[in-house]
C-alpha cells in the first residue's frame, strides 16, 4: 500500500519532469503518457482514488496533445471510474468529457453507453431531473445506432421519472410508443398490457375521466386482447370510481387488484396521488353541501 503510493508519486514526478523538459528526439507527450499511466495504476493499487483520478486526467491531456482522441476518452472514463468512489460530481464531468470525445470521433454507441452510466450515477444520487435528462440523451443515441432494446430500456426509465416529476403526458406517450413497438414482436407482445397499464395510471393522474375513457378505447383498438384483461378492468373501475367521486369504491378496487398483483412502489406513489386528489374533491363537495 505505502510502497505503491510512493512508487506512484515517483512516476508522476518523472512524468512532470519530462513534460517540462524539451524533447530533442521523439515525443515528450508519449513518454509522459506512459509514465502517467503507470502512476495512475499504482495509485489505484494504493486505493488513493482522488490521486488516481487526477493522474488519469493528466493522461487525458497528454493524449489530447498527441491528437489521440480515443485514448483521451478512455482515460476520462478511467478517471470517472476512480472518482466514482469519492466524488460523484467529478465523475459525471469526466464521463461528460468522454462522451464529447466519442461523439467527435463518431463512436456513438460508446457515447450512448456512457450517457446511460451518467444517468445511473444520478439515479443512485436520487437526482431525478438530471437522471431523466441523461436517460433521454442516451435513448436518442441508442435509437440513432439502431440498438432498439437498450433504447427502449432507457425510454422506460425516462417515462418512469417523468411520471414521478408529474410530466404525465410525456410518460403516456412513451409507454404507448413502447407498447406499439412491442406488439410487432412475438416475444414481447405478452408484456404489452403492463405498458398499457402504466400509461393508464398516468392518464388517471392527469385527472381527466373523459381522456381516460378515450384512452381505454384506443388501447382496445391497439390490442384487441387488452379488453379481456384484469388491467383493463382495473383502469375502467377506477375511472368509474373517480367519476362517481367515491373514495371507498376506489380503495376497494385498488385493494382487490393489489391482492392479486402486488403494486410496486412507483404505481403505489401515483395511485396515492390520485386518491389524495379524490379525497380533496370529496371534502370540497361536503363543504359545499
Amino acid at each position, binding site marked *: *500500500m*505505502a510502497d505503491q*503510493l510512493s512508487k506512484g508519486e515517483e512516476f508522476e514526478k518523472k512524468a512532470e519532469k519530462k513534460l517540462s523538459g524539451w524533447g530533442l528526439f521523439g515525443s515528450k507527450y508519449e513518454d509522459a503518457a506512459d509514465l502517467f499511466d503507470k502512476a495512475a495504476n499504482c495509485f489505484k493499487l494504493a*486505493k*488513493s482514488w482522488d490521486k488516481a483520478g487526477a493522474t488519469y486526467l493528466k493522461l487525458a491531456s497528454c493524449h489530447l496533445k498527441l491528437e489521440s482522441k480515443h485514448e483521451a476518452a478512455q482515460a476520462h472514463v478511467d478517471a470517472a471510474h476512480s472518482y466514482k*468512489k*469519492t466524488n460523484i460530481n467529478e465523475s459525471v464531468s469526466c464521463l461528460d468529457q468522454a462522451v464529447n470525445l466519442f461523439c467527435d470521433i463518431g463512436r456513438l*454507441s460508446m457515447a450512448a453507453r456512457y450517457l446511460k452510466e451518467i444517468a445511473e450515477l444520478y439515479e443512485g444520487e*436520487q437526482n431525478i431531473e438530471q437522471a431523466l435528462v441523461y436517460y433521454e440523451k442516451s435513448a436518442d443515441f441508442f435509437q440513432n445506432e439502431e*440498438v432498439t*432494446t*437498450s433504447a*427502449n*430500456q432507457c425510454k422506460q426509465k425516462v417515462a418512469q421519472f417523468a411520471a414521478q416529476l408529474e410530466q404525465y403526458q410525456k410518460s403516456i406517450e412513451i409507454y404507448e410508443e413502447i407498447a406499439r413497438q412491442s406488439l410487432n414482436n412475438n*416475444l*414481447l407482445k*405478452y*408484456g404489452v*398490457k*403492463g405498458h398499457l397499464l402504466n400509461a393508464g395510471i398516468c392518464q388517471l393522474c392527469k385527472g381527466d375521466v373523459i381522456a381516460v375513457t378515450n384512452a381505454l378505447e384506443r388501447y382496445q383498438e391497439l390490442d384487441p386482447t387488452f379488453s379481456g384483461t*384484469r388491467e383493463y378492468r382495473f383502469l375502467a373501475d377506477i375511472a368509474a370510481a373517480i367519476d362517481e367521486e367515491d373514495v*371507498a369504491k376506489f*380503495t*376497494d378496487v*385498488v*385493494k*382487490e387488484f*393489489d*391482492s*392479486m*398483483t402486488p*403494486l410496486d*412502489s412507483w404505481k*403505489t*406513489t401515483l*395511485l*396515492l396521488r390520485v*386518491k389524495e386528489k379524490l379525497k380533496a374533491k370529496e371534502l370540497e363537495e361536503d363543504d359545499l353541501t
Partner: protein
Amino acid sequence: MRDTNLELQESGWEELRKEARKIEGDLDVKLSSYAKLGARFTQGGSGYVDSGSPPIGSSRSWKSMEMEIQSLLEKLLDINDSMSRCAASAGPATSVTQKLARHRDILHEFTQEFRRIKGNINSMREHAELLSSVRDDITDFKTSGSMSPRMQLLRERASIHGNISHIDDVISQAQATRAVLGSQRTLFTDVQGKVKVLGDKFPMIRSLLGSIRRRRSRDTLILSAVIAACTLFLIIYWLSK
C-alpha cells in the same frame, strides 16, 4: 516552535478521531433501530389488523429517528472534513492517510444504508396509506377472497404474468448481447480481411521498412557529421582568436 505546533495538531487529530469513532458507533446503533422500525412497519402494514393508532405512533418515531440520523451524518461529514484539513496541514503520514480513507468509506457506507432504508420505509408507508380502509371492509374482503376459487385462479395468473415479465427482461438482455456480439464479429471480419491483405503485401512492406531504416540511419549519420563539423569549426575559431 515546530514541535509544539506538531504536538497541537496531533492532539487535535486524536480528539477529532475519537469523536468520529463515537459518532460512528451511535450511527450504527441508530441504523439498526431504524431498520427494525422499518421491519415492524412492514409487519403492521401487511396485517391490516391494527389500523388505528400504530401507524401514527410509528410514523412519529420514524420521522424523529430519521432527523436524528440525518444530523449525525452531517456532523460526521463535518468531522471528516476537519480531519482531512488536519491531515493536510500536518504533513504526509501514511497511517494518517489510511485512517482517513477508512473513515470516509465508513461514512459513505452509512449514507448508502440510510438512503436504502429510508426508501424502503417510504414505499411501505405509501403502500399502507393507499390501501387503508375501514375494518369491516377488510373483514368482508378477506372472507370473500379466501372462499372463492376464482380468486386463486386469478392469483395464479398474476404469478404467471410476473414470470413473463422476468422472461422479457432476460430476453431483452440476450438480444442486446447478441447485437453487441454481431457488431464484434463484423469488426473481426474486417480485421481479418485487412490482415490478409497485409500478409499478401508483406515482402513489399519488409523492403519498405528496410528502406526506412536505412534512410533513418543515414539521416542520423548526416546530422552527427554536421554537428561535429560545427563544433570543430567553433573550437578552431576560438583558438585562432
